[in-house]
């Protein structure tokens, strides 16, 4: 199993009051799956995705990624995991302004341990942009790109180090239905190429493209925690 969560908890401590957001999440996702995460607003989907993406730490429980406990790893190891093993796509794209599409795409390579030459970096960046169909826009700034194009640049950036898994938190949340379609096709294609995709969405037609839907309600999983349906 690629991802294994056991009793993951996240509680925010705001002064006097504790705000429990995730109240014991356990789930398993296999390599090559396409999973959609659904739930009401405030149910804790983004919180869970941030923990999965190693951006945030759980308050309790264990998170095994490819058999390695990453929930409690030190900061440098988690940075390395984010760099090499995980691709993360944000709702608001998070591209660097005044920086060309190509430079945005190759930015993570700057933090990759095995040093690549500048030319090799660019070659890989161009390759990634070709993969998302934006090779002709590589010298454009984010402000010169449409929302869908920006999100595809962000996807290319997430994939630059060939991670086995791609997380996306409402990747189409800021896009209209037409451009959403573009982006969703992109995810379908990537999953077909063998990348594990986990995304958060509110739209049922988006979720239906996925092989499995996990429903989350008030910090607990309702259905879909493990591949063969039923809760464990």
């Amino acid at each position, binding site marked *: 199993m690629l991802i294994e969560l056991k009793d993951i908890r996240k509680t925010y401590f705001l002064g006097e009051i504790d705000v429990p957001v995730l109240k014991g999440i356990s789930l398993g996702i296999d390599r090559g799956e396409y999973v959609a995460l659904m739930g009401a607003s405030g149910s804790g989907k983004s919180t869970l995705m941030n923990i999965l993406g190693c*951006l*945030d730490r759980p308050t309790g429980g264990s998170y095994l990624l490819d058999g390695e406990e990453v929930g409690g790893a030190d900061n440098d190891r988690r940075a390395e995991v984010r760099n090499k093993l995980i691709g993360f796509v944000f709702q608001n794209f998070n591209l660097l302004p005044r920086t060309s599409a190509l430079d945005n795409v190759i930015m993570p390579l700057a933090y990759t341990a095995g040093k690549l030459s500048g030319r090799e970096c660019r070659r890989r960046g161009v390759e990634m942009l070709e993969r998302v169909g934006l090779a002709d826009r590589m010298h454009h700034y984010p402000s010169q790109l449409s929302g869908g194009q920006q999100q595809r640049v962000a996807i290319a950036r997430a994939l630059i180090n060939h991670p086995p898994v791609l997380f996306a938190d409402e990747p189409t949340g800021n896009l209209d239905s037409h451009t959403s379609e573009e982006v969703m096709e992109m995810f379908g294609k990537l999953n077909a190429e063998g990348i594990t995709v986990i995304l958060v969405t509110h739209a049922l037609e988006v979720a239906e493209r996925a092989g499995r839907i996990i429903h989350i309600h008030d910090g607990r999983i309702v259905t879909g925690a493990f591949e063969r349906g039923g809760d464990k």
Partner: protein
Amino acid sequence: MSMIGTIIVALKALRRNPMRAMLTTLGIVIGIAAVIAMMEIGSGSSNSIRKSIEKMGANCIMVMPGAFRMGGVSQGSGSTMSLTPEDCEAVLRECVNVGKAVPVVNARGKQAVAGNLNYSPNNIIGTGPDFLSIRNWEIGEGRAFSDREVDERSRVCLVGATIVRELFNGQSPIDCELRIQNVTFKVIGVLKSKGANMMGGDEDDVVIAPWTTVRLRVTGLKYGSATSTTSKAATTPSELYPGSGVALYPEEKDNLRTDTLLIPRFIQIDQIVLTATAPERVDAAIGELTALLRERHKLKPEDADDFWIRNSAEFMTTITNTSKVMTNLLLCVALISLVVGGVGIMNIMLVSVTERTREIGLRMAVGARSTDILRQFLIESITLCLVGGAIGIMLGHGAALLVESQLGWPIESSPGAVAAAVIVSAGVGIVFGFYPAWKASRLDPIDALHYE
């Protein structure tokens, strides 16, 4: 991240706000410019001082009459002005560490006239033939005067290049006549040009003549105190001037004419200029001199010296000390400016970290470790300081060039100062950039990403 990559990112970040970057580095620019200008002017002047001292003669010693003054209070005990030609003779005879010694008398402020031109030479020096070798003067044309001409009070003189220009229109003045105070001198030699001295004065603005002639014919006579009861009278002038007569009517001094000269009993001289036999003997020679002159002047052990002794090395130290004080003062100004500049850098880097919190969060989200972030911001502040430093180096050099062209001060560009400036500005970048960079590196990725 590679160093070059980081520097490029840093430069891009700076280019986004060129005006702000410029104002931020102003403190560094001014500080570095001050350091560079100071170093170039300082080393230029100390270099020219050293050259002047070399021109003057490295192991040159001067003895001057008068009690040594300290804090404006005479330390002497009523001693009279006291250097005599006999002292000079005695020094030559008895001090083994002294190579050459000549008496010197000055006749400053007198006018010199040649043909229909007149001019006031800066220096009219009466001395002996050895003076030229002691002070490293060379004869360019003609000849020097001899001991015999000194004894005979001959009216001959040597002139410097400036005098040739001012009084002889640059023509060869050999065998021409030059009048000083109604005394007519024949020019027998021209001195080779030495240029400006350490104070910026013109060394070539000089007339050199036998000291006997200058003292007895030009500047008038100075007698030893008539009431003096010291036994200096025991030394008779006839010892010194075998060819001269005995002083008969000293009270007629005011009526003396140049051709009916009478030798007074006590002649005073303004200086004795001498050399040690070798530069390392200077201290020994000064010791001998002091002992001999004290004995000759009949000073009791508790009495202070009634003369003072200076040597060229000492001049050098005095002047170097003065310039050191100036240098340190400027260095303080530069240091304060650098600290102020550094605080400016720190301030702007803190602003930059806050402004770019989301960027930091994003970089962390795609795999930047806290050390990467620390390094990026450190390099950014170092780059900022180095750019400021580079501008400062150019400005400082420009200021030094301006001083050179406008004030005529000698400057010397020093690669050491440039290296120091580069290191100092990088150092300021590290010291004052560290806290903001450290703050950036401590950010939590998720908090930074969600920063508004």
